[in-house]
């Protein structure tokens, strides 16, 4: 285990690494912690152009609400603007995207990893070229056909588009992962009389989870953070959280709505914290199994 090596590090090096880590954590977390603090202030304080100290002292928050902290942003987002609806849509979209793209990706990635032919290589390269296409061009191309066929605005359309856009990355990751699973495993099963699919089902599926979970994390983040696709392809009542947050900002930032956006951002990070804490062992063990090898 790595701990045995770690234990032998001299104190000076551990101190240096620790100091660096503290520095990095401040760098990584400061904007978020600042936002967390500021989400309980009014817009005039958090986005003060007079003096940034206002965000700490809450001068205007005190003047406007009578207390140094206010939950107005959260109330506005969750109660007034029914942010939970967008939350529900996000859950539907992210879960579906992760499940479907992993299903497609494991099948395709397994096939690519087991094919000795050159076309497998070219398929991977083509997938990579597909990924190079800027998503905004893709989305603007979808609009007319989707309106024509009445597909625009619905969650399933957005889900399948996100799955497709995500396939190249998923394929690359999973192919390299499957290459690390010895071929003998499934081939001996086939010698024993299994079909290719039975071998996949009974031999490969049980051992593939670590790699799949890691790939799933990145699919999840893609679907969860997407703005280009969701903002253009979803109707208002089907909006997911990120475009919903953008709609709080709008082109003309209506008073107070900016703080709805800030409060929403803080609230959507909380479930992710729980998710990461819960899955961190799996995420790491997934990668540990050698998921991503170019």
């Amino acid at each position: 285990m790595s701990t045995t090596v770690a234990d032998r590090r001299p104190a000076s090096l551990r101190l240096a690494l620790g100091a660096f880590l503290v520095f990095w954590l401040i760098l990584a977390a400061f904007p978020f912690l600042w936002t967390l603090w500021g989400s309980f202030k009014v817009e005039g304080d958090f986005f003060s152009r007079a003096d940034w100290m206002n965000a700490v002292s809450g001068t205007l928050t005190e003047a406007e609400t009578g207390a140094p902290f206010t939950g107005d942003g959260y109330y506005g987002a969750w109660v007034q603007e029914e942010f939970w609806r967008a939350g529900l849509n996000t859950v539907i979209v992210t879960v579906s995207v992760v499940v479907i793209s992993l299903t497609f990706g494991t099948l395709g990635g397994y096939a690519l990893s087991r094919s000795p032919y050159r076309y497998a290589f070219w398929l991977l390269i083509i997938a990579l070229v597909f990924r190079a296409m800027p998503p905004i061009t893709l989305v603007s191309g979808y609009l007319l056909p989707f309106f024509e066929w009445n597909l625009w605005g619905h969650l399933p359309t957005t889900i399948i588009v996100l799955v497709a856009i995500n396939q190249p990355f998923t394929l690359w990751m999973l192919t390299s992962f499957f290459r690390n699973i010895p071929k003998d495993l499934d081939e001996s099963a086939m010698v024993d009389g299994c079909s290719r699919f039975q071998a996949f089902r009974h031999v490969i599926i049980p051992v593939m989870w670590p790699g799949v979970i890691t790939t799933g994390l990145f699919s999840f983040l893609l679907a969860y953070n997407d703005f280009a696709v969701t903002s253009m392809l979803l109707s208002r009542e089907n909006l997911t959280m990120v475009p919903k947050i953008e709609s709080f900002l709008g082109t003309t930032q209506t008073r107070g709505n900016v703080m709805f956006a800030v409060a929403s951002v803080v609230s959507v990070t909380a479930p992710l914290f729980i998710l990461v804490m819960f899955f961190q062992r799996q995420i790491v063990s997934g990668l540990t199994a050698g998921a991503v090898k170019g």
Partner: protein
Amino acid sequence: MNKTLRGLTLSALLGGSALAMTAGTALADCGFAEGRVSIIGNEFPAIRAVADRAAECAAGGVEVNANLTSQHQTLNVAGMSTTPPEYTSAIIANSSIVALINDDVIRPLNDLVAAYGDGLQPHQLITINGDIMAVAFMANAQHLVYREDVLNDLGIAVPTSYEEVLAAAEQIRAAGVMQYPVGGAYASGWNLAQEFVNMYLGHGGQFFAPGSAEVTINNEAGVAALEMMAALTEYMNPDFLTHDSNATSTEWMAGNVALMNMWGSRTQVLMEPEGSAPEVHTNTRVGGPLMVGDSGVPATTLWWDGWTVAKNASDADAEATFRALAHAIQPDLLNDETQQMAVWMIEGYEPTPVSSGVLDTISAQAQPYPMLPYMGLLHTALGDNLAPFLQGRASATEVLEAVEAAYTSAARERGFLN
């Protein structure tokens, strides 16, 4: 501007008496029984109020939906070009209607106005070549906003021209009151292009050769407009190229700015107590449009917001859409809350202190923002190419040449030029 003149302008604009207010309101009875109404438009309170009123018509066989989003400009053409269209109406402004006309997705409303347009005022109708293409319901313009206390303390008269703004700014800076007393939405892109459009019109410039798509901005008026903009930026926060109208308003509320050219629709919020110190919001005043040079044309543009009906909508849906939206902008739309939201072109609208800026701009005969098929291309070219001059990296003629070249290549592609 004195009261009588303003009253005159207003009655000319709004088409007469407030008598219509007394007419009773029969809520939700829009007079039709079926049809699909689907509206797309930008997201801000005044449009939301109109869409909510249109939704009152939803009953029985009538279905009313509204998708108000900042992506509306990307979605509206595609969403209106299918049969039947996803959207039966787009709410647009005088700049964005041309995209719909260019792609031929909106229908003339002459027949519908004749049949169901009783409640509409003649000046609300936007006509092109005699065809009514849209119905306007609110007006907007950029005009001066100033801090009364700062000007009074230094004995400065309210500026009426950009030359006076420069002089006032110098006085304020010299007195040590503010280092950067001038504000403006000069963010590179749409905002910066809009400021050039204002300043160029104020210098009496013509954007295009008459009747053609040939651009003509690389001239004395263009150079003078850019030089005035550069002179103003000397008194602006050095970050001016990143300040859109949101950021400019924030600067104002922080008390950093004493003079700015700002949208009428955004001044109400500056006078409200939330968000700024008492000396800022109690001393915020609106002035008239600013002049520049000696052309006699104000350096600003007039804007309207209005609604359209999709060409591909069935007759029944077109009628439903027209009647629902005509219902939405009847005088009973106006109440204490909605009065504050915009300068409505609706009978019974009573000007608030804020709206005087827009009304003064109208009566000063500022030009409307040009409704030309290729103006959007020029606006984009301006927004992308003017910044190097204000950063001191290129001369005025160099950036104007770049704008003309960028516009010409876009207009060729789009088929406006050969």
